[in-house]
């Protein structure tokens, strides 16, 4: 870096005459330019992320009309409600179940695609990524239509096979299953793409060495593929946990939290309290409950990404 600073802005003739003093000046100017270039970004992050985050904490300490400071009353009120604990329970179930199946399907499909001849892989990969490309709100609408009580295409198929129809969205437990199913459908292709990229980066020699030692496919997977992919699996799972835990679209569109509030997630519940019922402080308090869980996941992701950055470069 020092050598670029030396030549920067200096012509060949006065280069020799440059003193440390002017060099410092140039250095300062260079960092000033860099800072100015970052200024719009800093402005966006400070004004639209950091400030709202703190404002949210302040807001959650007010009463409904935002006229009086009531301390932690919003939080204690929430914690005294059964519905709130159901939200905690449902969000956890939703995130854990959905992420587990997304990662599993992603891993399986990535292996299947990787088994194909190289020229066919592109086509399959392109086809399997389609759920991820369609805006989630719109594909959820399509799923809703397939779950529709009277016209359900699934129930038609089940009935024609001799089974009875399933109350996809009107029974609380089936509704929980349905929202998780849609999330798995939407998110699994993301895992597929990440794992496929990771599989390609595993050196072929490792597999050849294992083949000479007589390892079968399962042993290769356990002793080579998984350890080599451990980091990327950790990153994608944690990242997906954050996104899935904070999911809004699917539940809002398909059930709006019903039946009997049993599919509410943090996001939809705080939307109901804060925007629909107009109690912004209570809504802010609800969404703030997400923060500790997300923060822990974020710290682990950051560690993983740094480690991976070192591994690669």
């Amino acid at each position, binding site marked *: 870096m020092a050598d*670029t600073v030396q030549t*920067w802005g200096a012509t060949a003739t006065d280069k020799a005459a440059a003193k440390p003093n002017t060099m410092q000046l140039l250095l300062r100017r260079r960092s000033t*330019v*860099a*800072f100015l*270039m*970052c200024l*719009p*970004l*800093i402005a*966006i*992050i400070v004004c*639209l*992320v950091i*400030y*709202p*985050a703190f404002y949210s904490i302040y*807001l959650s300490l007010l009463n409904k009309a935002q006229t009086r400071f009531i301390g932690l009353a919003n939080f204690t009120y929430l914690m005294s409600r059964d519905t709130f604990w159901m939200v905690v329970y449902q969000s956890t179930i939703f995130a854990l179940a959905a992420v587990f199946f997304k990662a599993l399907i992603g891993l399986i*499909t990535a292996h*299947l695609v990787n*088994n*194909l001849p190289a020229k066919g892989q592109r086509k399959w990969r*392109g*086809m399997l990524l*389609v759920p991820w*490309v*369609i*805006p*989630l*709100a*719109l594909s959820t*609408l*399509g799923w809703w*239509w397939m779950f529709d009580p009277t*016209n359900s*295409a699934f129930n*038609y198929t089940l009935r024609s096979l001799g089974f009875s129809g399933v109350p996809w969205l009107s029974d609380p437990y089936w509704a929980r299953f349905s929202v998780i199913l849609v999330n798995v*459908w939407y998110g699994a292709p993301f895992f597929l793409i*990440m794992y496929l*990229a990771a599989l390609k980066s595993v050196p072929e020699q490792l597999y*050849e060495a294992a*083949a*000479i030692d007589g390892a079968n496919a399962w042993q290769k997977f356990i002793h080579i593929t998984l350890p080599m992919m451990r980091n990327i699996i950790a990153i994608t799972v944690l990242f997906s946990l954050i996104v899935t835990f*904070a999911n*809004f*679209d699917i539940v809002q*569109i398909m059930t709006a939290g019903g039946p009997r509030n049993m599919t509410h997630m943090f*996001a939809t519940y*705080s*939307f109901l309290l804060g*925007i629909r019922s107009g109690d912004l402080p209570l809504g*802010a308090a609800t969404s*703030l409950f*997400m*923060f500790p869980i*997300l923060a822990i996941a974020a710290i682990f992701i*950051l560690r993983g*990404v740094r480690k991976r*950055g070192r591994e*690669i470069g």
Partner: protein
Amino acid sequence: MTSITAAAPAGKRLTVGASLRRNRRWALYTSYFFLILFAIFFLLPPYYMIITAFKTDSEMAKLATNPWLITGGATLDQFRILLRDTDFLIFFKNTVIVTVCVVVITMVVSILAAFALGRMRFWGSSILATGIFLTYLVPDTLLFIPLFQIVKSIGLLNSYWAMVLVYPTLTVPFCTWIMIGYFQSIPKELDEAALIDGASHMQMLLRIFIPVALPGIIAAMIFAFTVSWAAFVYPMAFLYSADQQVLTVGTVTSLIRADVYKWGMLMAGALLAAAPPLVIYAFLMDYYIAGLTSGATKG
């Protein structure tokens, strides 16, 4: 495979080779079989949406017909009703305006910042880079309530310009993050050469970095486009009248009139609304995937 056949005794080499080839062929067939099953799972909803959009209302009312096929003749009526009798085109126009503005803002802000952070280390730059990554992990559902209050206080509630204001929080951090990676992968010799020729920072960025990192920039642009086209939480919370609404929320909420679900028209709307991202994906799949995978690996 060759290493194993070579290790086998010379007399058995042929048969071992043949059985391995047969095993491999069976592995391939099983792969295809399961992939087809997964493909059916992944493509069933879009397929059903397409089928529904081309059906007549009378066919949909008949519960006895097979819903997975069009049996009563395909029709474009649903699209005609959608475009003539609803606010769909207004939603479309609003979404285009918002998305174009957001993509432009995102690209300007994140190219400048990524250039500074990736190339011109300065005091606090590594902290800032980490901060950007953490901002990317903040979900929109954590911030929409305070942002509602902020948007309201500056008088932008129920205006799509509020979307232009808040969407960059979803796009800028990730785009900056992946662009830092792309800029860092450009060889140092290039900017040294430019510096010797007396180029300014801006000239260096415009003449060297942007052209060389063009694939990364396209990937980031596609990301910004997809995110702002598909955003749902913010318009759901901040917009309520039809003339300001965007496609995602408009299709889901205001196309549903009273208790009658015009499913054919709804699916036609969902298809048209999802078409731009799908078309871009169809043509620029490799950039799309590069942007997706570089988030976790670069930087």
